[in-house]
């Protein structure tokens, strides 16, 4: 069966050079913004990365990134920096937006390698083909029984965010999927 041999070629590390590595990312500063487009514009100026008004878009500027999560919701990621949330909140008119520091609520996981999408698809129902889920696309979705934020940073590099208490579960699911794929 042609299909089975294709799957085997995709999955078997012996047959191909497919790789995947999965691991926790170092702590970082995370901020959520719920607000109107003008608040998002103001926050983008202070954060020095534009908050995309376009759905499912992540905008990375250096080590900082602004991820669209909903029509009035963004997740800002940056290297650890005390006081970032306060300076953004000061810039953002409270009447039009709500800024929350959620740095310790979430944990970042990196999935890197040619088999990254295959391993993620063990628990995520989205089409992760590069055409359907291109570089720069981000969304909240599900991984097995946990809610995650998924962001494709490079063709073979995914950033996964999950809530802290789910982190061992999410990492476990990904590692098990990776073992099931033969890595």
């Amino acid at each position, binding site marked *: 069966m042609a299909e089975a041999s294709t799957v085997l070629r995709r999955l078997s590390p012996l047959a191909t050079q497919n790789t995947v590595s999965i691991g926790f990312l170092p702590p970082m500063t995370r901020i959520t913004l719920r607000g109107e487009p003008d608040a998002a514009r103001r926050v983008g100026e202070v954060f020095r990365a534009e908050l995309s008004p376009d*759905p*499912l878009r992540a905008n990375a500027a250096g080590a900082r990134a602004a991820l669209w*999560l*909903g*029509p009035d*919701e963004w997740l800002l990621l940056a290297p650890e920096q005390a006081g970032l949330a306060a300076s953004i909140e000061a810039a953002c008119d409270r009447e039009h937006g709500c800024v929350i520091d959620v740095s310790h609520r979430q944990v970042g996981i990196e999935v890197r390698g040619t088999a990254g999408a295959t391993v993620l698809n063990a628990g995520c*129902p*989205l089409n992760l083909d590069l055409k359907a889920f291109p570089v720069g696309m981000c*969304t*909240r*979705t*599900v991984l097995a029984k946990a*809610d995650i934020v998924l962001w494709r940073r490079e063709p073979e590099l995914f950033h996964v965010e999950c809530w802290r208490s789910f982190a061992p579960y999410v990492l476990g699911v990904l590692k098990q999927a990776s073992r099931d794929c033969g890595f």
Partner: protein
Amino acid sequence: MLLIPCPYCGPRPELEFRHAGEAHVVRDPSLSSDAAWGAFLYARSNTRGVIAERWRHASGCGRFFNCLRDTVSDNILQTYKTGEPRPDLALDAATRRQLGDVAPDQSVAATEAAR
């Protein structure tokens, strides 16, 4: 699994959504009798055919939206943002024929006539 077109995110797997009851149920602040209040809380159309429902893209953009779904075939005919009017039913019937859905539409017609 159904593919549900979120008005914000596009077609997404059913797993990411939560059903949230019938749409366009309006709370009338002037309701004074227990019967009217009870009807607002509990009486639903329970339509056999096309029904407007609220759905939430819970594991996605998080937004509530409305959805026309056929309770006979489970076809999702159209989704639209909260606050927008329910799309024209005539159009829905055409869509239903297009989808090859041959279920009789009498109960829908009766429900619409009663409004």
